[in-house]
């Protein structure tokens, strides 16, 4: 097999992995602060994907232009969800939280089925068939845009949590819940903000994913599972770990498809998960206490 094939496939895997990473980043942010595992994560992404398709088909709005507005819609959705539905469950047993979010996931899937029907939908942008060629390297334009957008969004998120006062307050809640209460932080509002930020991340990932894959109502559970594999591999609660996990899974799937049989490429992602659980249960960049 020519070397350029490996190069092309690896680059495609990296770009897809970046979008995977952004999607998982939302899950990791939510868990890292609120300590609630969002079992409706992929389903929330499918909402963003359908919004993208809807706006493209009805108003011909380019997905890249709609990235920020749709992320904002998902932020509001996430905020309202945490403030109205999940906050009362924060101190309840984990199985109650699990059932609540699984129920939410089922409701989202079925609502999408009722509204949009079961068939796959896609956006046919003017650049849908474009690619860039640099020597032997051919890069899919849509994947490149999606990957670049993922890097921008992730960077903004890192900057927000590192330097913004609100970001620092959220990190304080994550580090020490009781301490945050003692110093007078409005923890429930910060939790809602965090859930909103996580939802906005998955919303942005959903918009970009629409450029790469077709959307169906049942796509959600697949991506929920994928997000779990990524964050557990990278380290649950670690933002850098989520991005690293996304890249690792994206590249592994791509290369496994090339080197072994493509129909079994998902198997290799799970194989990595098993290895991580065996040898580094906290994940590659996770803290042992988690």
């Amino acid at each position, binding site marked *: 097999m*020519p070397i350029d094939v490996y190069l092309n496939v690896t680059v495609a895997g990296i770009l897809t992995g970046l979008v995977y990473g952004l999607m998982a980043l939302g899950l990791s942010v939510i868990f890292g602060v609120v300590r609630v595992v969002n079992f409706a994560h992929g389903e929330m992404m499918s909402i963003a994907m359908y919004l993208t398709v809807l706006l493209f088909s009805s108003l011909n709005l380019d997905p890249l232009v709609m990235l920020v507005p749709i992320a904002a819609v998902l932020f509001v959705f996430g905020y309202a969800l945490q403030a109205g539905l999940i906050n009362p469950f924060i101190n309840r047993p984990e199985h109650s939280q699990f059932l609540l979010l699984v129920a939410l996931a089922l409701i989202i899937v079925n609502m999408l089925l009722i509204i949009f029907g079961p068939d796959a939908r896609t956006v046919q942008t003017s650049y849908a068939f474009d*690619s860039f060629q640099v020597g032997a390297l051919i890069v899919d334009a849509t994947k490149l845009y999606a990957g670049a957008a993922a890097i921008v969004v992730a960077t903004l998120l890192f900057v927000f949590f590192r330097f913004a006062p609100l970001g620092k307050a959220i990190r304080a809640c994550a580090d020490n819940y009781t301490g945050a209460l003692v110093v007078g932080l409005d923890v429930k509002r910060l939790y809602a903000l965090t859930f909103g930020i996580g939802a906005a991340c998955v919303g942005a990932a959903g918009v970009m994913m629409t450029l790469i*894959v077709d959307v169906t109502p049942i796509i959600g559970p697949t991506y929920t599972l994928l997000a779990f594999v990524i964050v557990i591999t990278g380290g649950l609660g670690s933002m850098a770990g989520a991005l690293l996990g996304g890249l690792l899974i994206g590249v592994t799937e791509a290369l496994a*498809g090339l080197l072994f049989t*493509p129909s079994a*490429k998902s198997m290799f992602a799970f194989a990595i998960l098993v290895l991580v659980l065996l040898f580094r249960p906290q994940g590659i960049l996770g803290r042992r206490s988690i």
Partner: protein
Amino acid sequence: MPRRIHLSRRHLLASAVAGATSLAAPGIVRAQGAGGRPPLKVGVLLPRSGFEASIGQDCQRGVDIAPGILKSLNLPELAVMNADTESNVDVARERAEKLVNDGAQLLVGAFDSGQTTAIAQVAEQKGIPLVINIAAAPDITEQGYKFVFRNFLTAQMILSSAFENQLELFNVIGAAPKSVVYMHVNDTFGTAMSKGISAVMPKFNMPYKIVDEIAYDPTARDLSVEVAKAKGANADALLVVSRLNDAMLITRELVKQRWTPQAILSMGPGWYEEQYLKTLGKLSNGPISLVPFQDPNKKLTKVLEAALAKAYPGVNLSTNHVYTFEALLVAADAYKRAGTSDPKALADAIRTTNITDNVSIGPGIQFNAKGQNDKLKCGTIQNRGGKLVTLAPKDAANAKPEWPMAPYQNRA
């Protein structure tokens, strides 16, 4: 003073019987067909949703145009009971059972081999005839079933006919690929075709060799790796067994990865489907499908074409409509000859079917002892400007092949 009503047990029973009779009577009257015979209740199972939805809905067009044509052929009326398999084997089985429980007297379906296998088991258990419209896995008619009939080619028949047609095609154009890479869906149909290729291809002394075989998930949403691998094999042509969504994904990736093979030779659905042509526009031109198809020169084909054009303007007549219509034709013909909706009598009548005025390529519709129409042949079809032309067999051809494919990058 109000009059007391004496209601004895006998009065109550008589009233109930009279009431039930009067309620049922209009239904029975309504159900009478034009010839005084009630319509045969035919359960039509198709993947109307899920990843095969587009093809299932295309098959449905064959159902929709059938009543008028069957009437013009002086065949009895059919009462169609639609069911959706949701592109899922378990759902297909469950829906087949429900149709039978709801009174279906004959089943038709279900496009997909896996789903059809499940439905065939139900049909055999319940003793209800199943006329398969489309499904190629050979095993379905190798089980010794008494109620299962298939007017469609098995995987091996498709392959034998497809290889014959390829040789005819290469002969006409005076050229042939030296190597192909073989991509196929990893489902019941794709696997059956793969097994068949190993068994059948050596008999035909083909001018090319298969340099790589790439199997992929039928529900895959991204086939970039698969196409990169195929491109890396550096073969002259692409040999494919696919469905619709994956055919479109492969085409998109071929364009993005800037690879136009000499030819795309398809031995399955997808590449000639209406949605493929409409969605991809100029990028849909060129692929050659070696598949069960209609004979454009047959009289009934022209009738079917006219009916489809009237009901669905702009839709090309193709495999899905033809074989779904023919399954209903078999059902109506058998019902007429059996004179009853008794399942066993219907199955016996289907077994002795001899329809020569039909649509598909081949001498007509007859079933062997296994319930298989073993006389069917494939056609060789090429996409040209949103239309389908027939290149082979010679008797059914209406165009010359365009070879090699025009590069994707040169198509505006």
